């Protein structure tokens, strides 16, 4: 996080705000609600309180304006610059301006007013832009489905104002650090020749073209997928990726989530009702066999016959000796299985049933 140069802050904790005018894109009640929720994010984690004034001069004046609106920082039409806000202080200090040339929404379509307001109010309170892509104070617009303060945002605002008096204040999500030696994964899949790693709300992507590991929100590709994906596999011959969470699964083709999903794993694959979720999954392109790992057992599913093979489940330890009794994630590449459990990664040769190497889970990120 970054505090604004000069560390400007409000010297009082009971602040006021007023919405000077309304965008025609939403009802006044929807605008009021979005702004109120945005203030609540910050008051939940600090001693600050925010009171809405119906008229007169408030500490934080909120308005929808376009083009040159005489604050020395003209807007630029639709796209580009969406909004801006001034650091704490008298007069224009703390004020937030939203570009009326944008379309303001209360859903995942561009641009979600709640999401942008949460960011701008961070500026109104003394925060600058954060380099943490998972933080609300990251400068570029990314709507990840839910609007929540990341731990980075909380650390920043509490550096200025301290914690809230409410003992049950929320903690924030942590953005994965690709070179953190303690990094673990929720799911991993091959995808059109690349590898995609999943953790909480984020994906990480390593490809040969660009050495830097790409990290961003899963919602950038698939807005309707939930965070916390538990398993994923590529069905290469149909160019599909299947994502699993709980007893549901989704199928995507490129960036499109296929219609009719999510579906239920029991009716689709024939799992017994005792199976509540899948830990990991991988499909072999050459045999059409998909392996599902659940606790210390695994099932084998025939994608051609679309039914579970007989004699399953079997014990993981029996057919994949040495990789332990639980799998977080798995993929197959160049004929070998790569099993992940915690920070460990096992390269496994199914022909000889032997582990060929043991590595750190994030060894693919060239740290």
């Amino acid at each position: 996080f970054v505090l604004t140069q000069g560390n400007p802050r409000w010297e009082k904790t009971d602040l006021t705000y007023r919405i000077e005018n309304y965008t025609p894109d939403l009802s006044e009640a929807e605008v009021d609600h979005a702004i109120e929720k945005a203030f609540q994010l910050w008051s939940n984690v600090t001693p600050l309180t925010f009171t809405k004034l119906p008229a007169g001069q408030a500490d934080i004046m909120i308005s929808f304006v376009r083009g040159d609106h005489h604050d020395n920082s003209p807007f630029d039409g639709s796209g580009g610059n969406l909004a801006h806000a001034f650091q704490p202080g008298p007069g224009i200090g703390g004020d937030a301006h939203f570009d009326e040339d944008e379309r303001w929404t209360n859903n995942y379509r561009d641009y979600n007013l709640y999401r942008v307001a949460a960011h701008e109010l961070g500026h109104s309170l003394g925060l600058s832009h954060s380099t943490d892509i998972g933080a609300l104070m990251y400068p570029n617009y990314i709507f990840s489905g839910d609007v929540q303060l990341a731990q980075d945002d909380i650390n920043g605002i509490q550096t200025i104002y301290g914690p809230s008096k409410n003992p049950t204040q929320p903690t924030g999500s942590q953005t994965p650090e690709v070179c953190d030696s303690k990094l673990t994964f929720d799911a991993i899949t091959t995808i059109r020749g690349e590898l995609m790693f999943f953790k909480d709300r984020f994906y990480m992507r390593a490809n040969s073209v660009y050495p830097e590991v790409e990290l961003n929100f899963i919602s950038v590709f698939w807005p309707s997928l939930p965070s916390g994906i538990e398993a994923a596999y590529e069905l290469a011959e149909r160019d599909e990726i299947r994502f699993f969470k709980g007893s549901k699964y989704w199928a995507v083709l490129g960036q499109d989530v296929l219609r009719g999903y999510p579906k239920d794993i029991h009716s689709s694959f024939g799992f017994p009702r005792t199976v509540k979720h899948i830990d990991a999954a991988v499909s072999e392109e050459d045999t059409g066999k998909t392996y599902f790992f659940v606790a210390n057992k695994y099932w084998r599913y025939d994608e051609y016959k679309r039914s579970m093979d007989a004699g399953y489940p079997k014990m993981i330890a029996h057919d994949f000796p040495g990789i332990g009794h639980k799998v977080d994630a798995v993929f197959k590449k160049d004929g070998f299985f790569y099993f992940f459990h915690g920070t460990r990664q096992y390269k496994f040769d199914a022909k000889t049933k032997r582990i060929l190497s043991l590595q750190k889970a994030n060894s693919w990120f060239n740290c």
Partner: protein
Amino acid sequence: FPVAPETQQQDVETVQKYLEKYYDLKDVGTHIERRRNSGSVVEKLKQMQEFFGLRVTGKPDAETMKVMKQPRCGVPDVAR
């Protein structure tokens, strides 16, 4: 593959405007060559690339241009 000249020109404009708007780059006048090569443009470009975790090249490569074209928060001009 070589970029068509007009695209190149657009990119130069995009870089210039972005750095003036968000990285307090002073407008260095009209001559395109002076803009592109001026030390301050390279320096500001490196600052931006550093911030976004891009490869710090000082050159407007594809990844950098992609980030520059994403909608974002403005930085109101408090200084003046």
